[in-house]
């Protein structure tokens, strides 16, 4: 390559990817810098300041810019720390679920036959449950907790990766370069890792960015239902669940954490849309098995 000029990656030339990154800027900043920029301890209880409205509305003070909850905890600080939970869950669930699903999909697609039939029947069983219901059932048994939540969401989200990876493998398996690798005696592991896996990468990356959105929404939903990270951890979902109780008198409790969820999910979806347009225009059934 004589071209020494640094080139912008293709995906960064998509307007939608850029817009998505802009949406994620606030949640990412909150997550990374929460200990530095949060005005209060997210779990500090100030009972005499309970249910203070946001700073700009009547009765609000500048001490609590976005108001306080029923225990007098600062909403802004809790939103900032909640970003850590949401993004951590979003990324780890996709890594674990994606790794598991890709492994199953590549193995199924490569070996075919009985292995493939078995894994695809298992996938059918997982698809027979509404995604949320299965995650809910797992959380009910495991009990609340961040890592348990990540496990529950990862276990219930491998199927779309497996299906996409399998479909891609089936499409490239018969191509000459794979046949050639066979002919020179490459091991199945080598063929799968070196020749087949790279061909699934672009589709899986598109799928993964949509699944980050699904994982963030999933965490929020389970926490909202009371089967999430547990009562003492600030999470957007559990904040909203309290907001529901006070909906008639304290609008800010239900509104503000939700805006951050929308921003994060929207950002991930925009990145997914943009990456799909650039990397894999034929890829459409992105939320398959959602």
């Amino acid at each position, binding site marked *: 390559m004589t071209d020494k000029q640094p080139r912008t990656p293709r995906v960064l030339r998509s307007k939608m990817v850029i817009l998505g990154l802009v949406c994620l800027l606030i949640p990412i900043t909150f997550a990374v810098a929460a200990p530095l920029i949060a005005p209060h301890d997210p779990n500090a209880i100030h009972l005499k300041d309970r249910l203070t409205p946001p700073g700009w509305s009547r009765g609000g003070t500048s001490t609590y810019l976005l108001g306080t909850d029923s225990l007098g905890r600062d909403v802004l600080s809790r939103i900032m720390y909640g970003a850590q939970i949401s993004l951590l869950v979003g990324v780890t669930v996709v890594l674990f679920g994606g790794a598991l699903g890709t492994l199953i999909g590549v193995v199924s697609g490569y070996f075919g036959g009985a292995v493939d039939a078995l894994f695809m*029947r*298992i996938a*059918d*069983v*997982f*698809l*027979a*449950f*509404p*995604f*949320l*219901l*299965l995650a*809910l*059932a*797992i959380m*009910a*048994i*495991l009990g609340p907790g961040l890592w348990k939540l990540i496990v529950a969401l990862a276990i219930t989200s491998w199927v779309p990766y497996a299906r996409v990876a399998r479909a891609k493998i089936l499409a490239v398996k018969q191509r000459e370069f794979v046949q050639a690798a066979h002919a020179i005696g490459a091991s199945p592991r080598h063929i799968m890792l070196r020749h087949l896996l790279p061909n699934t990468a672009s589709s899986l990356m598109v799928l993964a960015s949509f699944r980050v*959105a699904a994982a963030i*929404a999933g965490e*929020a*939903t389970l926490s*909202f*239902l*009371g*089967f999430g990270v547990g009562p003492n951890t600030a999470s957007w979902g559990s904040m*909203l669940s309290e*907001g*529901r109780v006070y*909906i*008639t008198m304290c*609008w800010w409790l*239900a*509104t503000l954490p*939700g805006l951050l*969820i*929308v921003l994060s*999910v*929207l950002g991930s*979806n*925009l990145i997914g*849309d943009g990456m799909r347009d650039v990397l894999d225009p034929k890829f*459409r*059934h992105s*939320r*398959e*098995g*959602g």
Partner: protein
Amino acid sequence: MTHYIVKRLLLYIPTLLGVLAVVFILTHVVGDPSVLLIQPEASREDLEQMQHILGLDRPIWEQFWVFIRQAVQGDFGRSFWSDETAMSIVLERLPATAELAFCSLLIAVILGIPAAILAALKRNSFLDLGISTLSLFGISMPSFWLGLMMMLVFGVWLRWLPISGRGGLDHLVLPAVTLGVSMMAIVERLLRTDLVDVLSEDYVRTAAAKGLSGRRVVLRHALKNALIPTVTMIGMQLGALLGGAVVTETVFGWPGLGRLVVKSISDRDYPVVHCAVCVLAVVFISINLLVDLLYGVLDPRIRYD
């Protein structure tokens, strides 16, 4: 065709057994119902007695066999908290969820399909951009937050609609819209993309060239072909709809199956949880079977063999 239906029905059986196995593994292998049922300070003898009553001291394969045998007969035992059978409690709640899911689906289809047609016909216009942006928000808003916001605006501030419970049509509006929005957005996004593709196909151009009216070209030639992936997607999304019902019903206090699941999980009422989860799964895989069979009607090119 008959051959295909028989084949699909036969594949349905292992899936169903798999569903029962997953439910069994979750509750009997990962968790122990007797521990969940008994007070934490109970003695060892109490625990063993409880395990004996529930049949948990028998070998795991025997328990699994008993569970499967009773489950396929629709017998999930009696609720721990009331004297009714789990099945009767679940069936009592089913109509409320069906009503909610049906109305959401209706909203999604009635609004989603015309929106997609408009966006595809006026591609890259401001209308298209507006519809696409709304759809993107539609898939990005968690349903419970959308529900809370609509409660706040239409229930608390404007006082137009009731915010909780089941009653007349006015009670149905907010939960049905909440549940329908994401599906509507998904329908719109998928159908728009497919319509744009189909509209540039030769047979659509031919139809237009031979002087058929624009409406006829779109409805008869383009839409019929573009709808096929959308119908599949609707079938797959019905599962998400049933899952979404869990949340929407909780937000709006809608007395359906979803709220029953959440409540019985909190109450540790395992027979009811088993039954509700299995009923939801059976409904879901049955719908997907129907959707598969519906393809043939929409697209005669598909052969079942």
